[in-house]
């Protein structure tokens, strides 16, 4: 089992290379911690199941940017249909990273449907039609991963991680502020590329 933050650091490289939307829970806390509360990371602390749909809208709106959704197995299980919708669109700039620990961490580590290998989210993603699906279970698989953001196809990375919560004390929960600062960060990117 991989450590979440170690795995994310390896996969994402410099977080500021991407526009990031996270699901609630550890994904939000980890990305806020890794990016030092970057404005180009939109961390949700509610709306469970919305992360992939938001990432799709963002990826279609900004095809020139690498868009990354980071979420957990519980959050993704709440909206499996969103993987099918992404598969129909196939935005090449979108990467979905699912941190799979088989547990609902926020509510006391109750098993999700992926616990004990019952449900395989990578299999579901592949069957939905996402072209580039990888399951990462160890350091070797992490090291062998090609950089995200330039693969030319929608990617789905299922990362098997250990259970355990690491809250980020400064997690921004003012949604209006998150929205406004994210849009400003996108706009700065547009000005730089002009």
């Amino acid at each position, binding site marked *: 089992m991989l450590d979440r933050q170690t795995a994310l650091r390896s996969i994402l490289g410099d977080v500021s290379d991407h*526009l990031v*939307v996270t699901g609630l829970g550890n994904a939000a806390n980890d990305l806020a911690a890794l990016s030092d509360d970057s404005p180009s990371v*939109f961390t*949700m602390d*509610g*709306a*469970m*199941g*919305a*992360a*992939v*749909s*938001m*990432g*799709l*809208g*963002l*990826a*279609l*709106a*900004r095809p020139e*940017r690498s868009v990354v959704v980071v979420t957990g197995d519980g959050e993704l299980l709440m*909206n499996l*249909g*969103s993987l*099918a*919708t992404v598969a*129909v*669109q196939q935005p090449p700039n979108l990467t979905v990273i699912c941190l799979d620990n088989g547990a609902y961490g926020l509510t006391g580590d109750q098993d999700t449907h992926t616990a004990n290998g019952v449900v395989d989210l990578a299999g579901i993603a592949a069957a939905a039609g996402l072209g580039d699906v990888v399951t990462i279970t160890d350091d070797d698989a992490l090291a062998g991963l090609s950089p995200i953001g330039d693969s030319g196809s929608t990617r789905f990375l299922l990362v098997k991680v250990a259970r355990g919560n690491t809250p980020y004390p400064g997690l921004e929960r003012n*949604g*209006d502020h*998150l*929205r406004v600062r*994210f*849009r400003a960060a*996108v*706009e700065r990117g*547009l000005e730089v590329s002009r």
Partner: protein
Amino acid sequence: MTDPSQPTWSAELYRVLRERGTSIVGYVPDSGHRHLIEAAHADDDVRAVPLTTEEEGVGLVAGAHLGHEKAVLLMQSSGVGNCVNFLSLVQHCRFPLLTIVTMRGEYGEQNPWQFAMGRAVEPVLHAMHVATVRADHPDDVMSAAEASVGMVDRGGQAVALLLGQRLLGAKKF
């Protein structure tokens, strides 16, 4: 080419959406939205995004806004019930949201399964702080659409444009 089956108001509505700068159209199919959906798919400057459930469309519109693009969500009234928790994202983060809802379970409805959600549409939307604008006559559609767009794009609000069954014609199914 003009489709003789396409009502004038439907073409006008699409024009309002395009003039507003809509580049992404998320939808769950409904016969009342047929012409808008076909127009979106035929339009090289618009990305048509079929959804598995309406709540995905709420996330899609919010994500597009984060990326400085305008999107719209097309759905039938029963889909409003599928959106409720995701509308908390819209309310809490103050995302502008434009959705166009074709109504069932009201004027002339003959399917008893449609009434419960039809009656709940406006109370549910209002509970989630989504304003509603109704169009029940072809002459209402343009002004209702322009009013909705202004509330969303300049007023920053979440707005549902409700196309009533008096406008659409009650279905026989």
